[in-house]
């Protein structure tokens, strides 16, 4: 089986076309939301908080917002596509052809990564005007952005397969993805938290994605980017294994 088979490429292209056709909702809207976060939090907290020496709060906030947008949009892409297809019944067009489980997973996840990165790049392009940002280790930026988007894209596939209704998916997003993202250090360093909550944060995989991503900008982070990479890689492997298992079993797809 080839990962670049025509089947995979077509499904990947279809997923890209799907979000591109509604770009106002899938790209422009999240960029505007991130912009509003920056204006409000940056205005209120600028000059009052210094997380890293010599780094302004707005500069600290921007990578967090970029990564939050990457993660949330990667999740939204695969999960919303799958649940819509399940509910409207057109998922049958994916289930009838000879697409392998890997082709399906990779196509959905790859399109999620693209959407996450496009939105992230858009957020960065707009917000970068508000602070001076350095690129201490650009490779880490790319690695954590791609890994983070792939993880959330995979989580979106799992949620899309599991959910039978839109409100179940909304619950997954509101009670799991959103809190995990917000409590991962988008707006703060976990060193500013009490000891107990610092410890709790270390069980949140989203924290490692954002912390590693931020390291790429400032060359400093709460923990080593190598540690973050190891944890993020392991998390991705576990999620990919779960997603492939669900697809192989036809869980809630093939009865």
């Amino acid at each position, binding site marked *: 089986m080839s990962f670049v*088979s*025509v*089947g995979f*490429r*077509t*499904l990947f*292209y*279809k997923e890209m*076309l*799907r979000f591109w*056709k*509604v770009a106002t909702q899938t790209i422009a809207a999240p960029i505007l939301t991130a912009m509003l976060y920056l204006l409000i939090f940056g205005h209120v907290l600028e000059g009052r908080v210094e997380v890293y020496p010599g780094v302004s709060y707005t500069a600290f906030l921007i990578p967090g917002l970029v990564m939050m947008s990457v993660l949330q949009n990667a999740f939204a892409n695969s999960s919303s596509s799958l649940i819509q*297809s399940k509910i*409207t*019944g*057109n998922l*049958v*067009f*994916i*289930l*009838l*052809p*000879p*697409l*392998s489980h890997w082709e399906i997973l990779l196509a959905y996840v790859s399109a999620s990564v693209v959407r996450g990165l496009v939105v992230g790049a858009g957020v960065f392009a707009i917000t970068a005007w508000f602070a001076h940002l350095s690129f201490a280790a650009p490779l880490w930026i790319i690695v954590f952005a791609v890994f983070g988007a792939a993880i959330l894209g995979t989580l979106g596939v799992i949620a899309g397969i599991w959910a039978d209704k839109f409100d179940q998916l909304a619950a997954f997003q509101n009670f799991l993805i959103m809190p995990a993202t917000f409590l991962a250090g988008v707006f703060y360093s976990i060193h500013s938290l009490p000891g107990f909550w610092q410890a709790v944060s270390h069980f949140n995989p989203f924290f490692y994605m954002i912390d590693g991503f931020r390291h790429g900008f400032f060359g400093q982070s709460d923990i080593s980017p190598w540690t973050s990479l190891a944890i993020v890689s392991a998390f991705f492997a576990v999620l990919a294994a779960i997603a492939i298992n669900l697809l192989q079993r*036809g869980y809630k797809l*093939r*009865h």
Partner: protein
Amino acid sequence: MTAIQINSVEKSYKGFKALKGVSLSIEQGEFFGLLGPNGAGKTTLISTIAGLIRPDVGSVKIHGHDVVTDFRNARKNLGVVPQELVFDPFFTVRETLRLQSGYYGIKNNDGWIDEIMHNLDLTNKADVNMRALSGGMKRRVLVAQALVHKPPVIVLDEPTAGVDVELRQTLWKFISRLNREGHTVVLTTHYLEEAEAMCQRVAMLKLGEVVALDSMQGLLRRVSGSQLIVHLKEGALPEGLRPLVSHDENENGKGNRYSLRINAPGEVEAILARLRESGAVVDEMQLQQADLEDIFLQIMGDAKAGKGAL
């Protein structure tokens, strides 16, 4: 060559047995009908063939490829028109067909896509979004989607349900052409006249079991003779003629009207004589050859009465 081999397939949903050991063999090039009342298990069987449902017991092979263990090769050989009118609202007709081609590993398929659209009268809708199409047009796109990869086996699950005469004619003309060119066609329909006109062989399903499997001629021979339909102006049907009644059309509110099964035209005079003797007056009379509907009703009735299947 066997196009579809179904071996002792069983499927249950929460204790309800939708398929009870169905076995069928459909040969390459056949036009095969799968008939049965609602809830007979037709769609469950088709979904099993398509790999959308996994059997609890038994196996299905398409051109020798198991639909579960060798699903990629099995699906390459199969095109399915689903019963539900589903579509992807993001795309135009042409985009939909190009994407479907790609899922089957086919690039640059526009030549065949154009031909399918032409044959299904979709050409002038090629760049129209799926949402903007009427139900009949959406149905045509579903058929086109099933054909983009030129599958040797085509399964149509009630393709003409709720569509107009024009589409039916267009569809059957195209499907007949594909069948003549060697494609195997499996059809489920509630329009028995369609099945009678198109199918060479028929399986009838009832409550998850095959209750009849025969060629169309073989089935038609089973109901020997014809139907004599009489509408009585006066009097009643004599008790002696009651055993010949195949349809008591009074149940349909059509008045004093009966369909009587006869084996030879010579029996008509004897029946009329019995009616005259009983004082009944015939208002209208019609002699009809037995058709698939008679057979269907008879077989389903027999199956209901537990008279055995074959």
